[in-house]
């Protein structure tokens, strides 16, 4: 499978804290790649560097051949990010929220309605598309956040703890959406500390702890002789 995101010896400090200490991994098209680790391991910082919000102190990141330092706008055009914090504009409708990000992501005027309608239909949002975001439920808001991240049809999708604030039903919809995106050939990077989810969904995983990679490879290989990924994870973290 073709490489979509290549992270090479990434280092990053935030203030006095050295958050990343030489992280390397590769995520491919048509797979769900798990970025696993406890809270504070450096997962969010890694994702923020991949999507150009933060600059690395050392190392490099390439997204579909574009370097995040030299071609940040090209990278942003090719990435969609969904985070746990569902930040949407409360006084805009669900549709207006999605259309705003579509326009800013470079969707052309002639294609705008078609793309927005397409994503509304795909995520089954028709019933609340015209409703103001402030009146939506958490699950509906999360759908708006996903829709806004994918409306420009990016080949790379990143999910940063996407289910941490959601109920069981909404969480399942997110998982289903990730699987569907994978089947469409997208590169899906799934950052989570919920190892049960990762084990079910991810084709390959990288486990990071205190800014370092402590395990990496196909999910089954990383689990290895252990009963589940959680045991393998604890073993790797303790050994590091």
């Amino acid at each position, binding site marked *: 499978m073709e490489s979509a995101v290549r992270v090479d010896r990434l280092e990053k400090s935030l203030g006095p804290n050295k958050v990343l200490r030489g992280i390397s991994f590769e995520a491919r098209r048509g797979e769900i790649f798990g970025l696993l680790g406890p809270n504070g391991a450096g997962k969010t910082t890694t994702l923020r560097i991949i999507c150009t919000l933060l600059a690395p102190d050392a190392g490099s990141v390439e997204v579909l051949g574009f370097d995040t330092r030299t071609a940040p706008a090209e990278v942003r055009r090719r990435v969609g*990010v969904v985070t746990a914090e569902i930040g949407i504009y409360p006084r*805009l409708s669900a549709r207006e929220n999605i259309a705003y990000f579509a326009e800013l*992501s470079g969707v052309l005027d002639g294609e705008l309605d078609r793309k927005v309608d397409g994503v509304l239909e795909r995520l089954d949002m028709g019933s609340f598309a015209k409703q103001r975001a402030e009146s939506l439920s958490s699950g509906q808001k999360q759908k708006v956040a996903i829709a806004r991240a994918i409306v420009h049809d990016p080949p790379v999708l990143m999910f940063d703890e996407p289910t941490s604030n959601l109920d069981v039903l909404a969480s399942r919809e997110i998982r289903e959406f990730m699987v569907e995106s994978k089947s469409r050939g997208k590169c899906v990077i799934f950052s989570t500390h919920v190892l049960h989810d990762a084990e079910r969904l991810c084709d390959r995983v990288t486990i990071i702890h205190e800014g370092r990679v402590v395990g990496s490879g196909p999910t089954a290989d990383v689990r290895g002789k252990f009963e589940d990924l959680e045991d393998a994870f604890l073993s790797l973290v303790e050994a590091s």
Partner: protein
Amino acid sequence: MKAVAIVFRKELREILRDRRTMIAIGLAALATPIVLYVISQVTVRSATQTYTVGYKGEMPAGLDILFNATSLKLEQVADPVEAAKAQVDVGLVFTPRGVDEYYDPTRQSAQITDIRIQTVVSRYDAAKIAATLQERGVDPSVLNPLPVTQHPLTSPEQAAQNAFLSFFLPYMLITMTLTGGLSAALDTSAGERERKTLESLLLTPAPRSQVLVGKILAVSVVGLAGAMVAIVSMLVALSQIKFGAQGQPTHIVLTPLAASVMVWLAVLLAGAFASITITLGTLARNFRQGQAYATPLYFVTIFPASLVLFIPDFNPSLGYYLIPILNAVLVLRDAIVHNSVAPAALAVTSLSLFVTGALCFYAALRLFTREALLVRS
């Protein structure tokens, strides 16, 4: 530049749906006429109000007529000194030598009564002297060897209007430009962090400078609208409300030059304030913190207008027109009071306000591109 238009359109739509901004603008439209009506009633009332003079002793003949004609009510009291403390506004004791006046200068009514008494007594003295001289066959004009005939270039009513407008109009213009756009500015800057929308916004390929320009333009338009609504409502109110004493009421009007200068300054101030408040909002983590950062701006805006109120003839050098806000107040005062504005003063003022806005835009852009903006949030 497409992103500027996209952000501008979205911000304006959100602002128009924000009750806080709409309430601020609506209150400005309503509050100004109410405040002006109250001021007009107070001025009319203090000009026509009757004050009480407590007196003791033999009052000279005819003086009582002058007192009554000046809305001073005479009341005989046993002790004018004690009465002047509360019972009456001024106490008078007529003696063979003259008259002793007792009043409390801390009471405004006593001050006004004192001025009226001085006027009445000086008129009485002049009439008495003139009558005595005429009885003795002397022309009373010998007492006034150099008579002065005054030719005021503006009427006293016009002077009063100008004094009022030169303080109130800049004050309204500056305060409403700031207040009208403040809520929108904080919402579009600190609010982005508070709602957690900032990260998603910065993830788009739109250049951050264009995003910021779109935001500043939207806030400028709202600030300008707030100022215009307040000023139009003020001018409409001024055209309807009469000021001054009954019998010589006056309406206050704005000259075309002053109106043009006001609109131009409002545009510049709206841009500068939008940049300043968005910069402060970008520094803040949430709306409330943004409000705390912006509060000192109110003092900055009230001070220059107060300067014109307390020093109406303040005639500064061109260098003073470099000071933002103060320069707008001075230019507006010149336009209102003198109906003329020095081109150099207007040019320096415009440049100063433009540079202030540009510097704040640069500061906001630097903040907008700092990693700390995301990490702190």
